[in-house]
């Protein structure tokens, strides 16, 4: 599925290390397939998640098919609002997550952007990325909950103060 035969890009986590994406031996095991694409990037299905060195806990979701397409993401467990997020079994089944395997193979991220007005980071908590780490498949699940914002300001939402 990789269109460019010799795509070479810099790995964002290792700015001096070069990764050749179509070297499947290296990359395939970390590839996450978004079977239904991501809204706005419907044509792209293969992504990798990378750490940003010196900027934990931020990560990058990067397309393997169009390597310059990437989005900043954050583990939802860092956000207070995660307690309000409910995902239906039906949605989870689409990425082969079932009640009995729940939790062991599941990672949930939110996509971040810079809020236009405030120039601060905001998270789209209404449409989290759910990843089945065992099967290496994922989906962006749009939640039907009016109380969840597409521009949840990170500053207000981090779970930091109540740590002992």
């Amino acid at each position, binding site marked *: 599925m990789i269109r460019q035969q010799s795509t070479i890009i*810099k790995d*964002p986590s290792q*700015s001096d290390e070069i990764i050749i994406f179509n070297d499947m031996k290296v990359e395939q095991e970390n590839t996450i397939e978004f079977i239904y694409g*991501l*809204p*706005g*990037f419907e044509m792209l299905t293969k992504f990798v998640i990378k750490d*940003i*060195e*010196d*900027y*934990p*806990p*931020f990560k*990058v979701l990067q397309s393997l098919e169009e390597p*310059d*397409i*990437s*989005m*900043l993401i954050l*583990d939802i*467990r*860092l956000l207070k609002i*995660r*307690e309000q*997020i*409910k*995902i*239906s*079994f039906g949605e*989870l089944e689409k990425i082969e997550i079932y*009640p009995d395997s*729940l*939790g062991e193979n*599941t990672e*949930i991220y939110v*996509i*971040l*952007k*810079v809020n*236009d007005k405030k*120039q*601060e*980071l905001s998270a*789209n908590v*209404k*449409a989290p990325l759910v990843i089945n780490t065992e099967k290496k498949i994922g989906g*962006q699940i*749009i939640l*039907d909950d009016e109380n969840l914002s*597409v*521009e949840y300001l*990170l500053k207000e939402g*981090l*779970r*930091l103060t109540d*740590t002992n």
Partner: protein
Amino acid sequence: MRITQSIITRSLLQNINRNKENINKRQIAIATGKEILRSSSDPVKFSRASRFRKTISRNDQYLKNINGAKGWLDTTTSLLDNMSSGMIDAKEIAIQSADESNNAEMRKMLADKVDSIINDTVALANNTYMGKYLFGGTKTLEEEPFSYDGVDTVTYNGNSNNIYRRIAENYNISINIAGSQLIDMDIFSSLISLKNALNDDDTDGIQSSINEINSASEKLFSLTSATGSIRNQLTMTEQRLDTANMNLRSYLSQTEDVDLAKAITEYNAEEMTYKAALQVTSDAIHLNLMEFIG
């Protein structure tokens, strides 16, 4: 459990300590971060960015269309609901008056009540949204779609065309209920039969109008579920467009004149990183994903 916890914590602390050792390299790291996170000078990203900006503004237009369509449909649905209540009232009158013990004079009085239900229903069907007739087909401006002669005829002046709104790329959706459907469903004619039967003191006629009203009511109800399903389509498309725009804006955060690297560094205090790491670690052990399940 405790061992696992401490092992994980230790390895995280090692990472964090390494970060601390690297504090002198912070300036370099930020510069590198910028390089990664802001590459507006990259011509591929630049041309893609302008294409995505166009997509976003087109999606915004679709979202506006959806918003207008929702208003139109919600008004339509509430008018259909009101028409349904009118039909229920008429049916009550019919059942009540079908009893032989009602004399002609009482039935005339009830006929007047039915007449006002007909007038109300016509008025509902002549309603507008943002100055446009909802039930006139594509004749939304010229004249009221329905007229009632006050005797035995409701005339439809509109057409049976659909009104479409474009709500996504290659996706047009019909948002109107043409008034011709109300005529075809015998909404008005069933009410008029009841009124006539009451005026004529015709018990059999009253009986048969009960059935007519019942069947018209059922059809009217099916229209309400049709508008409900269009409403769902609109909401689903709206959510998808919203998500698409947020995803595209996330990408653009890296390419536009906003300083993503700067925004991130505000969250990159040593303490925050440390606490955040601990938070994830304790969750990694205790996380019960059941709380995600609705």
